[in-house]
């Protein structure tokens, strides 16, 4: 992420030599800061994960290993509902990420303004993030029950026939996506709030002096200066959406049938069935897929900065 903000608009934007100081001994930004976290990360995460990539080339029962080359990958691509799963993954990720970015920003602006009951609103919005996924899944399964559920009963009160949220093939995936947003928008909002909070007040005062209305304050101050927050929320929610399966699993199990399966639930089912090699191959594929989407996006979002 690049330096974006003109710091305090006081000093000119003089290019500072990267970390090289007059003194000869070491810099103020020493590499050894990387040492401890680097070791922890490498030993406990990097190494085992690469080891597991090896297992994707084998038939692995956890007890025996037989090397079979790329057969697992071929088998994964022959998975009957893979195509549907890929499409569902794309839809789910886009919908949840898009909604979280937009709603999160909107809520953050609302919650950083001089509004009444701000404390209550902030707690209430963040609260769903704290509840365990199982609880959320069950709660909304009940609320979304086609006949007895509160949502459809409320709609019926207004004379609308609510859909069979979780059991109608056309609605199942979308219903879970909406619950996902309900649960996750609080997190996006908190990140945005932190982003907006770090915009120096001078900008707002200058805008007020200039007589700018709330919309143009939003467009020309908040959006550009909260950019780091926006990028973070986009990246995090997109990764989360592409990999998501907890909520889908708890609400529909990928069903009815296979209609709301995403790649992650396909992989999970293989893991549950004991096809450890196959599910690891699936994880490798998922990793490549997500990286192929996220990495270019990340560089694009971060490069698109005039500095």
């Amino acid at each position, binding site marked *: 992420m*690049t330096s974006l*903000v003109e*710091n305090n608009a006081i*000093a000119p934007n003089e290019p500072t030599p*990267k970390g090289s*100081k007059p003194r000869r001994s070491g810099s*103020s930004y*020493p*590499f050894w*800061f*990387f040492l*401890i976290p680097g070791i*922890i*990360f490498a*030993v*406990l*995460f990097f*190494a*085992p*994960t690469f*080891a597991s990539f090896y297992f994707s080339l084998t038939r692995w029962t956890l007890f025996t290993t037989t090397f079979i080359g790329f057969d697992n990958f071929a088998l994964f691509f022959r998975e009957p509902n893979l195509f549907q799963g890929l499409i569902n993954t794309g839809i789910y990720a886009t919908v949840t990420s898009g909604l979280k970015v937009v709603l999160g920003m909107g809520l953050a602006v*609302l919650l*950083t303004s001089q*509004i*009444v*009951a701000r*404390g209550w*609103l*902030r*707690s*209430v919005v*963040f*609260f*769903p*993030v*704290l509840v*365990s996924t199982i609880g959320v899944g*069950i*709660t909304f399964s*009940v*609320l979304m029950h086609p006949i007895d*559920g*509160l949502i459809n009963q409320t709609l019926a009160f207004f004379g609308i026939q609510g859909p069979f949220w979780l059991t109608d093939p056309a609605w199942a995936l979308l219903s879970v996506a909406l619950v996902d947003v309900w649960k996750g928008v609080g997190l996006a909002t*908190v*990140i945005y*709030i*932190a982003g907006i*909070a*770090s915009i*120096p007040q001078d900008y707002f005062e200058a805008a007020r002096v200039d007589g700018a209305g709330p919309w143009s304050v939003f467009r020309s101050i908040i959006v550009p200066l909260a950019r*780091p927050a926006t*990028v*973070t929320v986009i*990246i*995090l929610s997109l*990764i989360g959406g592409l990999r998501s399966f907890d909520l889908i699993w708890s609400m529909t199990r990928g069903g009815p049938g296979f209609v709301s399966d995403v790649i992650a639930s396909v992989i999970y089912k293989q893991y549950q069935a004991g096809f450890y090699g196959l599910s690891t191959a699936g*994880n490798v594929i998922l*990793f490549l897929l997500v990286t192929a989407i*996220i990495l270019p996006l*990340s560089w694009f979002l971060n490069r698109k900065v005039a500095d």
Partner: protein
Amino acid sequence: MRKRVRKYWLGVVSVLASIVIFVIPFLFIVTTALKSKREAALLDFTWPTELHLWENLVAVIQARDFILLTAFVNSTVLTVTSVAGMVVLGAMVAWVAERRRGRWTKLIDFIVLFGLIVPPAVVPTIWVMQGLGIFKTLHGLVLIEIAFGLSFSILLFRAFIATVPKELDEAAVLDGAGPLRLFFQVVFPLLRPVIITVIVVQSVVVFNDFTNPLYFLPGDENATVQLTLFNFQDQFDTQWNLLFMNILLITIPPLVMFLFFNRQIVAGMAGAVKG
């Protein structure tokens, strides 16, 4: 005057909307937690016909020799230590990565993304931990949570370190500050809103985590709070009322913590404004 009225109405509407959208589902959890087993099994959104608050509360706390209390202790220790580790180490990495840009930067970007995207591999990780002798230990699990949580922390920190003016660094260095003092005494305090955000978010993640304790710290004396939910769940016979009472009990501490930190975030914002 109109502005104030508008803000007031906006507030009222927001509160009403927040109740409908966010509070009603929570009410479901509460009402189910107060029901008898039979009524709870109906899983519908009604007020309980008889209140079983005390019984359910006692049943949940007493279950399996007060495992819930042990779990709270374990979860708290785990959360506090691993989040502290993640915050300090993550900030350090993000700081150097951001200030000292170079060939390393792209690599670190990639490693961070790698950490976010790839799910950990359980069995090889257990082998590594066994080899190091930290399997089935709390400190082992803390290191695991740190390892898994670093990517997210680094990502968040990097986004905001850019807003810390370099002039401050130079001033401190001219004063004779070494890297550690520069970081902890000068920069760290300025990152307050982000630090608090990372603490809040990661605490929730670690506190609510159940797969890592399940695999890396098995044993009833090591239970963490999410694992206690399994006491009431069964593929064939779930005790919904106790399950929801349990969910309620384990949601309350994070909620309280968040309410507390909420004030800190507000205070942090005021701090950032002055800086």
